[in-house]
C-alpha cells in the first residue's frame, strides 16, 4: 500500500471527481487469498462518461462494488486509495460512507427485474432514499419522486409513482431505477451493465436517457459493460479490463480507431459486424479467460496471446499518465503491422 497522502483542504481546481490509485481487491477462498483486482488506477472527471469494458470475471463489477464500499468486509480485502472529491472513501467508517452512498454516488444495477424490492411501490422506494439523506416532508419527497419519474420518461408519472415493480416492463423498471439513482442529484453515477438485460430498441431509449441526464444533471457516469457497441456510442473514455487489470486506456475514438492491446484487437474482431461483407468465420480469441485463482504473474493475457514472447512472463508496464496506452510489451511501432497481420491470417482463403 502506498504512503497515505494527506488530502488537501480544498481540492485544486482541476482535481478529478474520482481518483482511484493502485486499487487491489482480493477475496478469501478455500485456497487462500484470490486476487480479483490487481493494482488498478483510473480517474473520472466531473461530467464525463468513463466506460470500463470487459468480459465476465474481468473484475469490473468488483471494482464498482469497492467504490461504493459494498463488498463484504469479512471476506474481501481492499488495498489502495480512492479519493472522491478529495476524501479518502476506503478508510471511511460505515456511517460516513452511508452519507455518500446514494447521495453523492448513485448505483444503477444490471437487472431491473430484480434490483427493486418487489413489495414496495417505486414511489415509496424513491421517497425512502430521498428521506434517508435529506430532512424533507413525505409529501415533498413524493412530489420530487413524481418529477424524477417524469424526467426519466414516464408518460404518466403521477400514476406510475404508485406502481409496483412487477407492474412495469423491463425498460420502465430500468428507468425507475435510474430515477432512484438520480434522486439525490449525485455527482457520480455508477451503472453496472445498465442495458444488458434490455432489448435493443429499449436499450437505445435508455442510452439516450443516460446521455441526456449527463447533460441536464451534470453527473459523471462510470459505465460498466461488456458491449463494445454501447461503449462506442456513449463513452468519452474507455478502459479495457482483462483478468483484474486495466490493459488498455484511452479516449473512445482513439481506442476504436487504433486499438493497442492484442486483447482489444481480439475483442473487437470477435464482434460480428452488422454492415459490410460477412466473414465465413468470426475471429475468436482462442482459449478461456483465467479464473481469479489462475491469473499469471506476468501479462494476464499472455496464455491466449499469439504475439506473446519471453518478456511477457514479467508484468508489463502500465503507463498511466498517457492519454492512450496499453499494458503490453509489444513495441508500439510494430503494433499496427502485427494487428493487420492477425486480421489477415485469420481471414480464410
Amino acid at each position, binding site marked *: 500500500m502506498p504512503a497515505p497522502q494527506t488530502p488537501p483542504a480544498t481540492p485544486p481546481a482541476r482535481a478529478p471527481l474520482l481518483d482511484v490509485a493502485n486499487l487491489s481487491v482480493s477475496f478469501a477462498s478455500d485456497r487462500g487469498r484470490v486476487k480479483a483486482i490487481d493494482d488498478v488506477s483510473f480517474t473520472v472527471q466531473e461530467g464525463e462518461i468513463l466506460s470500463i469494458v470487459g468480459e465476465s470475471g474481468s473484475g469490473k463489477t468488483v471494482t464498482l462494488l469497492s467504490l461504493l464500499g459494498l463488498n463484504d468486509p469479512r471476506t474481501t480485502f481492499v488495498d489502495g486509495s480512492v479519493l472522491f472529491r478529495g476524501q479518502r472513501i476506503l478508510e471511511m467508517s460505515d456511517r460516513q460512507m452511508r452519507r455518500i452512498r446514494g447521495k453523492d454516488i448513485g448505483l444503477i444495477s444490471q437487472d431491473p427485474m430484480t434490483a427493486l424490492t418487489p413489495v414496495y411501490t417505486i414511489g415509496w422506494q424513491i421517497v425512502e432514499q430521498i428521506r434517508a439523506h435529506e430532512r424533507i416532508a413525505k409529501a415533498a419527497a413524493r412530489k420530487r419522486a413524481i418529477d424524477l419519474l417524469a424526467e426519466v420518461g414516464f408518460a404518466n408519472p403521477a400514476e406510475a409513482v404508485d406502481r409496483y415493480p412487477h407492474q412495469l416492463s*423491463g425498460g420502465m423498471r430500468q428507468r425507475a431505477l435510474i430515477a432512484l439513482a438520480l434522486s439525490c442529484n449525485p455527482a457520480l453515477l455508477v451503472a453496472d451493465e445498465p442495458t444488458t438485460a434490455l432489448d*435493443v430498441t429499449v436499450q437505445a431509449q435508455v442510452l439516450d436517457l443516460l446521455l441526456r441526464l449527463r447533460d441536464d444533471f451534470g453527473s459523471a457516469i462510470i459505465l460498466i459493460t461488456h*458491449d*463494445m*457497441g454501447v461503449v462506442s*456510442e456513449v463513452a468519452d473514455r474507455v478502459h479495457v479490463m482483462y483478468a483484474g487489470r486495466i490493459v488498455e486506456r484511452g479516449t473512445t475514438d482513439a481506442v476504436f480507431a487504433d486499438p493497442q492491446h492484442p486483447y482489444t484487437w481480439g475483442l473487437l474482431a*470477435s464482434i*460480428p459486424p452488422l454492415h459490410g461483407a460477412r466473414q465465413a468465420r468470426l475471429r475468436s480469441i482462442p482459449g478461456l479467460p483465467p479464473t481469479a485463482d489462475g491469473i499469471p504473474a506476468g501479462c494476464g493475457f499472455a496464455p491466449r496471446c499469439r504475439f506473446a514472447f519471453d518478456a511477457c512472463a514479467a508484468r508489463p508496464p502500465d503507463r498511466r499518465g498517457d492519454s492512450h496506452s496499453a499494458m503490453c510489451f509489444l513495441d508500439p511501432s510494430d503494433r499496427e503491422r502485427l494487428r493487420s497481420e492477425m486480421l489477415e491470417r485469420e481471414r480464410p482463403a
Partner: protein
Amino acid sequence: MSATAPPRPLLAATDLTKHFTVGKTFWPGSGRTLRAVEDVSLEVFPGETLGLVGESGSGKSTLGRCLTRLYTLTAGRLLFDGRDISAAKERALKPVRLNMQMIFQDPSASLNPRRRVRDIVGDVLHVHKIRPAAAIEDRLAELMGLVGLGGDYLDRYPHEFSGGQRQRIGIARALAVEPKLIVADEPVSALDVSVQAQIVNLFNELQERLHLTYVFIAHDLAVVRQVSTRVAVMYLGSIVETGETDALYSRPAHPYTEALLSAIPQPGRRARGNRILLEGELPSPLDPPRGCKFSTRCRYAQARCRTDRPAPTAIAGGSRTVACHFPLVAGA
C-alpha cells in the same frame, strides 16, 4: 439455393397459431387469450439457416417450441419432411424428434448437474438404440471431437465447465441422434463475446460437415447475420418480414426491421443522430392493436394501418416477404 427445381422444404409451417390462456380460475370461460404466435407461415429448406429475430415478447421462443412440437399447436399446419405433424401424438412424434433437436439458451440450466457428460450425451444413444452398445464409446468420443472437446472430458460434471464448454456439451447432446434439423433458441446470448464467436463458428463448421439445417433464434441481430442464410423478423407474435440475410440487412423492407437495425450500437460508430427511436412500449399480446400490430409505434403509419392488418406479401421478385401496407422496398 441452387438454380435447379425448388427443393422441398424440410420444415413448412402454414398459419401456425399458438394461444395461451392466462388468469384462468375455477369458472369455465374465465381467463384471457394470450396470442403468443399468430398465423405464422414459414419454410425452412435443407442445408440453410433460418434466423428468427425479435425482441422479448415477440413470440420467437414460443414459435421455436411450436416448430419442434414441444408445444401443441392451437391452429395451423406443420409439415416436417413432407409429413404432417401438426396434430401428431407423442408416440408418433418419437421418430420425428430424432430428426429434430433443440438447443437452449442457458447451458447450465439444461444440463442435469448430477450427471456426468458421458451420461448426459450418451443417454439418447442407449434409449434410442441408435448404435450397438459396443459402438457407443466410440460415438461419444466422436461427438466430443465434433464439438471441440476432448474425450477426457466425458467423466466430468457440468459445473466443471465454463459457459462456452457447457454449450458445446448441449450441442453434442443434440447431435447424438444425428438430426437433420436443429432449432437453437438463443444459444450464444449467455456467453461472453470472445466465447460467443467460438460457438458461432462451431455452428457454421458443424453445418458444413454434417449438412445440418438450422433455425437459429436470437435477439442479437449481428449474430443472426453471421450465421443465417435467410432471416425472419418477428414482432408481437407475427412475422413482419423475411428475406435473404444480406438483402434484408442492407435494405430492410418493414419499418420495424429498419428501427431494430438502427437501434443496435455499433463499435467504432458514434452516429447517434440518425437513430430511429421507437416511442412507447410493446403492446400487450393479450390485447394486440387491431390493424397492423406495429402501427402504434410506426413512424410511417397511416389511417389504413390502424384498421387493416397487412398480410405477408412477396416483394423483390418473390425472394422476400413483408407484412406492411407501405413497405420500404418496392413491390414485386
